[in-house]
């Protein structure tokens, strides 16, 4: 009951914020919310299920492209396009996951890295279907029940996407499945001995989180009203990994802190060092791995624990 009230309050505050912003701030705010959504689901995949995958941002791209292609090239109505888009993401996630999760540790990272690069190649060579290097543009969200959802109201849609993702992951994390994921992450052999089906757990974790990334991509398709290959490049998959590690992997709060920090950092750094904020990202990443393996949220944990003692 308490958590439901918390969710409602968060929905209210985040939505209210949407109505107070100008158009530039709205753009920044929307993308911040999307990054937090992605970091949350990637946190489940990397931090809780322990899979180093570089395909998360690719599924965001697949969702966005699937939405635009299904709506405007195939001509499906919106509800059908949403369902079909989710099906596309899940099917592709299974195609990648069923063979790839057999791979141990870092080999999964490589297979997904190759998959991510392959996606960009296909986008560039997709001809009129994907729009090639220029991508697809000049479309807008179809009316929903005769209403045009624009401006702050679309931001509210993103707020619900974020909270929906959080709720799904929260529920999963606290179920037997979340515990199974942690067990498989920490010691696959011990997990197997406890009667957990390691392969199925890995595949389901990968497919669910990838589908969540895909849904976020479907929402993103109408934020910039354009999709093109550079948006979904490898850089952003790295950034997602950095966000989760800097914030504190395995903790939803960590993912949120990491996403907010790394997304907003360039805005504060650019007056000082121009476009070289990626250098700071790298240094922060190395420093966190070396000195604060639990991430920034670990500092907070240590601080509250110490206060409780005194």
């Amino acid at each position: 009951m308490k958590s439901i009230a918390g969710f409602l309050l968060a929905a209210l505050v985040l939505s209210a914020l949407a109505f107070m912003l100008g158009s530039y701030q709205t753009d920044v705010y929307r993308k911040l919310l999307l990054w937090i959504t992605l970091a949350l689901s990637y946190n489940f995949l990397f931090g809780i299920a322990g899979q180093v995958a570089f395909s998360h941002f690719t599924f965001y791209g697949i969702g966005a492209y699937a939405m635009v292609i299904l709506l405007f090239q195939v001509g499906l109505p919106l509800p059908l396009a949403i369902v079909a888009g989710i099906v596309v993401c899940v099917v592709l996630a299974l195609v990648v996951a069923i063979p790839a999760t057999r791979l141990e540790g870092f080999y999964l990272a490589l297979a997904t890295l190759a998959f991510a690069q392959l996606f960009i190649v296909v986008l560039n060579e997709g001809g009129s279907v994907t729009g090639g290097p220029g991508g697809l543009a000049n479309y807008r969200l179809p009316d929903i029940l005769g209403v045009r959802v624009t401006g702050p109201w679309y931001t509210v849609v993103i707020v619900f996407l974020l909270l929906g993702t959080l709720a799904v992951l929260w529920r999963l994390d606290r179920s037997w499945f979340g515990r199974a994921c942690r067990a498989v992450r920490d010691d696959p052999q011990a997990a197997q001995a406890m009667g957990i089906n390691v392969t199925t757990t890995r595949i389901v974790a990968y497919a669910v989180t990838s589908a969540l990334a895909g849904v976020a991509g479907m929402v993103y398709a109408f934020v910039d009203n354009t999709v093109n290959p550079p948006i979904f490049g490898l850089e952003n998959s790295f950034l997602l990994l950095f966000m989760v590690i800097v914030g504190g992997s395995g903790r939803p709060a960590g993912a949120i802190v990491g996403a907010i920090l790394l997304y907003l950092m360039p805005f504060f750094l650019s007056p000082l060092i121009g476009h070289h904020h990626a250098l700071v990202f790298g240094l922060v990443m190395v420093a966190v791995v070396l000195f604060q393996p639990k991430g920034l949220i670990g500092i907070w944990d240590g601080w509250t624990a110490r206060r409780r003692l005194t």
Partner: protein
Amino acid sequence: MSDFVELMVGAAASGCIYALVALSYLLITRPTGIINFAVGEWAMVAAFGGFLALSRFELPYPIGMAIVLVALAVVGWLTERFAVRPLVEKGAPPLAPILALLGMLVVFRELVSVTMGPDPQPVPPMFGYGRMELGMVAGSYQSFFIIGVTAAVFGAAWYFFERTLAGRSFEAVAIDRRAAALMGINLRRVTALAFAGSAGVAGLAGLLVSPNVSAHYLMGLPLAIQGFTALVIGGVGRVEGALLGGLILAVAEQVTVRYAPIPPGLAQGVPLVLLIVFLLMRPTGLLRARESRA
């Protein structure tokens, strides 16, 4: 026919570059189990070193090359000293050094982009731009130079691992870390040497490839992926595997670009598909690691 032979000479040269990058991974992975994506960035740093030494200061090629390679070995050793050793000594999980090196990848790339600018810079080849013909076999001077140097490096690597005590100690660490440490092998020194050697080899790859592609701060990651593909094809356990994998990858790449009826953009996908197929079908590669011998 002569067209095909010339294609093969070019493929062999780029295969040698992939093989050197693959060897650079292997030198670190074999004794430590760490997969270091920053090898591509080391190659990139060396390419810019080549630009500084050979184009800016116009040093003679062998001297410039030696300076760059020594500098790279130092860079590799420093990377190990400050980004990897603290983690190993703390007993951090095996993923931690890999993530730290992933961060170092970004640090190297952005440092070069900040100091050298985002534009590609020329690096001269060893014997100038020319074409050599030996009967049917024809190709650029640089191609033959790359093939010769790579053959020498792999010969030296083979000799090192098979015939010298230091090389055997690498192999011992690869087979069983604890046992090797108990036998009096200094793990810390092996790791430091592995990183220095790996950076040197990666630097050589970057220096050799840079006359063909120019030094550019984004050249590292593609090289890292191609090198890893070569390693996966050939097998993570053996030095010869790196060479074999590099050559197979380059030939597959060049042949599809030239002969396959698909657009050239899509041909870029060939190494990626090859990587995925090999990871799924035969993750140990073509050549299996040698088991410990009695």
